[in-house]
């Protein structure tokens, strides 16, 4: 096993880290303190560098980067700003995937390509009041009519939904089939009946504007059905969920990296009883435990990224369970890390002028996307009991 990054991947990581430090780091406090403002200036400057095309093929202006390189990108972005990284990843993955895979040439040219240039905002819509992890309980409906479909329903917790130019929406096409009766549709800003509802005020991960999207008898033409066959929406969704979960884990590693770096600097300077607090065993124990779990999380992220590429090349299995476990472990690791970092800072950890309170608020948001951990544990445990999965290592 070769655990090293290639020279090219290491160069990429160094370059994106430097870009993040120069361009995004100076603005993170402003972004956090202005939750009702999308950081448009930073968005234009950063997306102008072309990174949103990283994972797409060259024919749509992408870079065809491998999944490991993409994970390095997500990690470095989240090291600066969890919220901004979520806005970026929405446009470069979830918000554009179905358009690229199933969209007509017109949809690709008019919407998808401008989105990966940062010129349009594209989002994906799953969550409703009564359905999150239980996607089969989706109530937003798509009814077949002459020439297209009519969409009705309300989606919630949509990252950048209120400012989007288009959205990919999961809808019930056959209520009798539950999760097997779901499909994806493209809805564009300006279509009659499409509007945004209330904005959700989050406790952290500021940057994206999150809120409700309302579909009131929205007619979409036939080519806005984003699939190959009615009823296969969930199947197509599972094709990117491994990548989405691995990406979430990489973002968790990013947040934890900054939190730990800040805490080390603090522990080397802050004195108590005549010594720096870094001299005390209970503080050192915290660092050792954070480092242990962070190393494990990084290894899981990069192994899952490798498995995703192996599967795409036809050389390996679907790493569904590995992706679940990676997401769960890395985000829980991040939660523990930011909690301990706040404790290392003592009372100062509670002050807005120090970073730890922001990392603490941001880390929490990663727990929910890609499945709650209660769902993941139940699923993985079930798979093991039924003999359907065991470790491949």
């Amino acid at each position, binding site marked *: 096993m070769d655990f090293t990054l290639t*020279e*090219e991947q290491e*160069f*990429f990581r*160094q*370059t*994106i880290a*430097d*870009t993040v430090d*120069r*361009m995004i780091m100076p603005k993170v406090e402003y972004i956090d303190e202005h939750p009702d403002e999308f950081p448009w200036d930073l968005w234009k400057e950063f997306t*102008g*560098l*072309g*990174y949103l*095309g*990283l994972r797409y093929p060259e024919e749509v202006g992408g*870079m065809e*980067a491998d999944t490991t390189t993409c994970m390095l990108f997500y990690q470095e972005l989240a090291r600066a700003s969890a919220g901004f990284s979520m806005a970026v990843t929405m446009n470069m993955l979830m918000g554009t995937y179905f358009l690229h895979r199933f969209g007509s040439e017109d949809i690709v040219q008019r919407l998808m390509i401008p989105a990966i240039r940062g010129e349009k905002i594209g989002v994906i819509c799953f969550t409703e009041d009564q359905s999150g992890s239980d996607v089969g309980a989706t109530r937003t409906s798509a009814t077949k009519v002459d020439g297209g479909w009519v969409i009705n329903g309300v989606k919630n917790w949509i990252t950048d939904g209120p400012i989007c130019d288009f959205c990919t929406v999961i809808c019930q096409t056959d209520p009798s089939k539950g999760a097997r009766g779901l499909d994806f549709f493209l809805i564009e800003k300006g279509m009659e009946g499409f509007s945004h509802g209330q904005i959700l005020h989050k406790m952290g991960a500021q940057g994206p504007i999150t809120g409700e999207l309302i579909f009131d008898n929205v007619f979409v033409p036939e080519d806005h059905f984003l699939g190959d066959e009615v009823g296969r929406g969930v199947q197509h969704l599972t094709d990117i969920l491994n990548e989405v979960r691995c990406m979430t884990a990489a973002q968790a590693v990013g947040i934890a990296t900054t939190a730990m770096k800040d805490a080390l600097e603090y522990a080397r300077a802050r004195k108590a009883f005549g010594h720096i607090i870094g001299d005390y065993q209970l503080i050192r124990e915290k660092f050792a435990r954070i480092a242990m779990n962070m190393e494990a999380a990084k290894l899981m992220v990069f192994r899952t990224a490798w498995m995703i590429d192996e599967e795409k090349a036809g050389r390996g299995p679907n790493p569904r369970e590995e992706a679940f476990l990676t997401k769960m472990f890395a985000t829980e690791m991040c939660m523990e890390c930011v909690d301990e970092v706040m404790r290392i800072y003592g009372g100062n950890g509670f002050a807005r002028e120090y970073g730890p309170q922001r990392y603490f608020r941001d880390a929490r948001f990663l727990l929910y996307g890609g499945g709650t951990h209660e769902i993941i544990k139940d699923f993985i445990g079930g798979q093991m009991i039924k003999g359907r999965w065991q470790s491949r290592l």
Partner: protein
Amino acid sequence: MKVAVLAKEVPDLEAQVKVAAGGASLDVEKRKVLNFFDEIAVEAALKLKESAGAEAYAVAAGAGTGIDALRRALAMGIPGAFQIDDPALAEANPLTVARALAAFLQKEGFDLIIAGKQATDDEAGLVGPMVAELLDIPCVVGVTGLEASDSVVTVTRHTDMGVEKYEVPLPALVTAEKGLFEPRVPAVTGVMKAMKAKIDKYSLADLGVEAAPAVKVLGYQPPAKRAAIKMIPGEPAEAAAELVRLLRDEAKAL
């Protein structure tokens, strides 16, 4: 116009640096970047490429170092990059580095050479002027303004006495000071190109260069630890009186 940039790979400013056991060498964390002032030089070359259609390339010299610096220059948009790689360049006399660079520049050709004012590791600022001397071309150091035509460059430099302006016939060498240009952040297309670029390598023998006698470092010492800072409380008049007392009676500075 053909513009050459001298690029040096240096430790990242955040890399940890410690005096090694014995005191004769440094333990430097392996985090390497393109020298800060050389990034400005790269940007200057790119501006000339974009405004005047200049050809541009970058060259670095070191012992097993330079690739990361050159990749950064490529990522920023410099079309060509070359590495002079030779064990004799390890902790070499700056004159050896200058001889190697001058030999390469003569072979590859140039109208204008842009170097950084100094490197952030040794802060010597020697190689640029040495290269100019070896090539027998005019040299202006620390420029904060640069305009070029086919036969002449007009440069400004800020000094304590004011702003100086020079018109320098080409070929020439200038060194870039902070404020000349703000280095661009590389676009992903540049980064991917740089990741895949093949960089030609040359040894001192390839260039017909002999190493100058090495400079022997006798030792390193870390800077003296700063004494604790004493804060003087109170209203300005009181604090001033207390400060005078401390300077006179404790620091014996008055």
